[in-house]
C-alpha cells in the first residue's frame, strides 16, 4: 500500500507515474466522493500511458475508449447504472477481461464479478485543494 498527498496538479503527474511503475494488474478501481477527483486522476493516468486524447467524464457515456502509446484503454463509470444486470448488458465483462487497462469509477456495483487481480485507488478530500490518494 502506498499513500500520496497531492496539493497541485503538477504533483498528480508524478503520482500517476509512480502508480503506473508499481502496476501489477490492468484493473484500477477508483473510489472517492463526488468532486474528489476520480476523473482528474484517471485523466492523468491515461495521459501517462501515452494518450493525447481529450479525456472527459464517462458518467454519461459509461465507457470511453482511448488509445495509448501501446494499447487501448477504457475509462468506465458505473455511476448511472442501478443493477449489475445493466452492467452485464453493456458487456462489462468483455472490457474487464480484455487485457487492456481499465479505470473504473463507482466500481462497487459490479463487485461480485470483479477479478481479484486489481488495484484500488481511494481519493480522500483533505483540504479544499489537497487530496490523499491511497494505492493498493
Amino acid at each position, binding site marked *: 500500500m502506498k499513500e500520496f498527498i497531492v496539493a497541485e496538479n503538477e504533483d498528480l503527474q508524478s503520482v500517476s507515474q509512480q502508480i503506473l511503475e508499481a502496476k501489477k494488474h490492468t484493473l484500477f478501481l477508483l473510489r472517492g466522493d463526488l468532486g474528489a477527483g476520480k476523473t482528474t486522476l484517471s485523466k492523468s493516468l491515461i495521459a501517462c500511458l501515452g494518450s493525447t486524447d481529450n479525456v472527459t467524464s464517462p458518467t*454519461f457515456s459509461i465507457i470511453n475508449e482511448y488509445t495509448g502509446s501501446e494499447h487501448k484503454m477504457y475509462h468506465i463509470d458505473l455511476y448511472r447504472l442501478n443493477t449489475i444486470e445493466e452492467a452485464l448488458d453493456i458487456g462489462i465483462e468483455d472490457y474487464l477481461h480484455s487485457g487492456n487497462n481499465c479505470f473504473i469509477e463507482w466500481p462497487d456495483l459490479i463487485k461480485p464479478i470483479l477479478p481479484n487481480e486489481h488495484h484500488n485507488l481511494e481519493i480522500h478530500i483533505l483540504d479544499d485543494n489537497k487530496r490523499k490518494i491511497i494505492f493498493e
Partner: protein
Amino acid sequence: MKTNILLAIESSCDDTSAAIIIDGVVKSNITATQDVHKAYGGVIPEAASRNHEINIIPVVSKAIKEAGISKNDIQAIGVTRGPGLLGSLIVGLSFAKGFALANNIPLIEVHHMKAHILAHFAEKPYPPFPFLCLTVSGGHTQIVKIDDYHDMEILGQTIDDAAGEAFDKSGKMMGLDYPAGPIIDKLAQKGKPIYQFGIPKIANLDFSFSGLKTSIRYFLRDHLKEDPKFIEKEKENICCSIQTSIVNILMAKIKKAADETGISHIAIAGGVSANSFLRSELKRYGTEYGWNTYIPKFEYCTDNAAMIGISAYYKLLAKDFSNQEITPAARLEF
C-alpha cells in the same frame, strides 16, 4: 422529382429510436424508452433499459406505421455509427446493415454529434450557413462552426464534465433525484442567484465544469457545518445560483465564439437546451448583440432518430453512402 423515403435508426446510448423522413420532412419519430416511461407515470428511470435488441423491431414497425408507408417504400437507411456505447451502437448498426442488404437499398452512416446540430433542419426556420451551434447534453458540451451540412469544425469543447452532468451532479450533492437538471430548473425559477461559485479560468473556447462541481461541494459542506438545514431552507436560491453559474459559463463562451468568428446566427442543441434559463439568456443575448437565435423543438433536442434521418437525407442528396464493412465506433472523428 423522385420522392426520397428514408428510415433512420439511433441507438448510441440509452434510447432506441426510429424515424421516417420523406423528402427531408419528419413523418414519424419513435423512441422506445419515452413510450415505455409513459406507462410509469412519466418517471424516467435513469440509464433506461439497455434492451435495444428487444426494442428495435417494435420501434421500427411503429415508425413505419405512423408514417403511413410500407416497408417496401423505403429507399435508404440512415444509422448512427458513433460516438456512443459499443454494445448499444452495434444493435442499431447491425439492424441497418441487414435491412439495407435485404432490401437492396443504400446504407448511410451518421455521426451522432453532427446529427444533433442538423436537427435544426427538421423544421423551419433553418439557420443559414455559416452558423454556430452550442451542443449541450448530459455527455457533451461543444461549440461548433457549421459551414455546410457536411462541413463542420469544433471550436471548443469540455475538457472534463459536460454541462448536463454539472446539473445532475450538483443536484445529487443537494440530495435531489437524478437526473436533476429539470428539477433544478424548476426550483431555480423561485430563487435568486445570491451565491457565487468558482469560475473556470480557461482562455480559449473550451469548457470545464469539474472545478464548479468541486466548488459547489465545498460550499455545501461549509454551510451545512453552520446550519444542518441549510439546503432545505435555501434550496431555491442554491438551485438558481448553480443554474446561473452553468448558463453564464456557456453564454460567455458562445459570445466569445461569436465575437471571434463574426458569425451572428447562433443555435443551441442537445438535451440541456430544454433549460429555461439557457433559452431565455440566448434570446436576451440575441436582442442585445443582434444575433439570430435558433432552438429546436424539444423532441429533436434529446437523442432521437429524426435528427439521424435529417442528416442521412443530406448525405443521400450528396450520394455519400457507406459500405457493409463499417463497424460501430465508440469514438468517431468529427
